[in-house]
């Protein structure tokens, strides 16, 4: 949404610049249990975008002041590696990272059964290893998998995906080029099994009917990602 002209057509004969159709997700890979120390961990790759997440807890809070008597406190950090972006990013948290940490933390609070663990903290950290569009939705997917891997009870798994608009057309799961030169980026995350939205933002402009269509496209994408999550978690995590 830079307003700049793309260096090549974003849509041509109904195909996107990388050959996908409007409703195609990028190739997705997921793994859980990739880290030794974390109570749970996950790795999610969507196209070139790549995120690692880890969950720790429930555990004793590092400071007494942050105890809640009736439930667990959730801490979440969305963070980009300095080499994850086209130009090196300072490792200090940017305003963007602070905002995304907040909205993802709030999304996670909606699904974690925090009332089962009063006076504890549950920590989830997502590290973006490579950023090529859709990092926040990949991060929330990875965070959800890491929580499941840690055995932390949730109301349901969260899946995330972004719908974009390029050259006037709505497309699913936009990458960085489509984000940069497109007209809209609408990241969505939901507890798919319960049909609950836990994250919803819009960066760009949509007409009312486009917004409603974008929502239903997102749903299609979320369902597919959710199925992948369930299959990667495999039989031992059947519950979530």
């Amino acid at each position, binding site marked *: 949404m830079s307003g700049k002209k793309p260096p090549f057509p974003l849509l041509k004969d109904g195909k996107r610049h990388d050959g996908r159709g409007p409703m195609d997700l990028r190739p997705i890979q997921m793994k859980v249990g990739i880290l030794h120390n974390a109570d749970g961990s996950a790795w999610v790759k969507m196209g070139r975008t790549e995120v690692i997440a880890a969950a720790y807890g429930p555990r004793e809070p590092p400071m007494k002041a942050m105890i809640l008597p009736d439930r667990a406190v959730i*801490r*979440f950090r969305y963070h980009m590696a300095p080499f994850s972006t086209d130009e090196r990013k300072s490792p200090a948290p940017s305003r963007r990272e602070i905002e995304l940490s907040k*909205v*993802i933390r709030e999304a996670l609070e909606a699904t974690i059964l925090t009332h089962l663990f009063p006076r504890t903290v549950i920590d989830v950290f997502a590290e973006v290893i490579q950023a090529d569009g859709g990092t926040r939705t990949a991060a929330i997917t990875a965070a959800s998998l890491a929580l499941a891997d840690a055995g932390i009870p949730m109301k349901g798994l969260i899946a995330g995906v972004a719908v974009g608009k390029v050259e006037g057309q709505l497309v699913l799961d936009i990458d960085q080029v489509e984000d940069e030169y497109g007209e*809209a980026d609408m990241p969505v995350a939901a507890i798919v099994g319960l049909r*609950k939205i836990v994250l919803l933002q*819009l*960066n760009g402009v949509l007409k009312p009917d486009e917004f*409603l269509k974008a*929502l239903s496209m997102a749903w299609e994408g979320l369902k597919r990602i959710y199925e992948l999550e369930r299959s990667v978690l495999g039989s031992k995590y059947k519950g979530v």
Partner: protein
Amino acid sequence: MSITPFNIPIVPKLKKETIYSLARKGSRIDKRKLDQFREIKITLGAAGKAHGSALVELGHTKVLAGVKIEPGRPFSDMPDQGVLNVSAEFLPIASSEFEPGPPDENAIEVARVVDRALRESQAIDLGKLAIIPGEKVWVVWVDINVLDHDGNLFDASMLAAMAALLDAKIPQHEILEDGSVRIIGPPIEPLPVKKRVVSVTIGALGNVFLVDPSLEEEAVLDTRIMFSFDEEGNLVGMQKTGAGWLDWDKVAIAFNIARNKYTVPLRALQGAFKS
């Protein structure tokens, strides 16, 4: 890092139940209808040294936005465009919950949400703000100061920022031989504002939606969602905020309520500039 707010006062059970039971009957503790905004008051020029400013009152919520327009350097990938910077401060005078210090995640969220709505709608014609292309452009600073917090800081901040920008004028200036810019008189020329953007925040409470939730309501809501619109009713920004969830199938309902109500802040804005 973001952390669950752990020092928020607990809402008394009775108040919670009152808000719930009123909502089910289509009413609210301050007698408003479910889809009714609080009274909106806009005072232009409230900060005399700003190049544009507006004090917005939304019920008891008070937000003062000030615009400063100063010469500066463009971004290297946008050499011919002015620069827009939006910041928000939740001043400690505004609430017993606000501590002095640098903006926290809540203030940063408000600033970024307002910034995106202004930027994506192309509300400001940044292309007209080059002074010496590639070298010097106007930098537009929008500073949102929350003075009194009685809920719905998103809509009040959006409105204050938009009104301050509409109120803003570019300083009279001349370009010196060495390429520097000298201010030579009071601001006269209006800032090139192309679009008027407003927002409507909807609170979800069980099966009902509340427009423009007050602070007491915010404390008991399931969650909130803010929609920003341009004058033609296009969606130019959106943010689900606060813990909790929203039924997938009710998003469209919330959106329609917001779409029906965005003319309320828009008319308040237009009213302020009628004279």
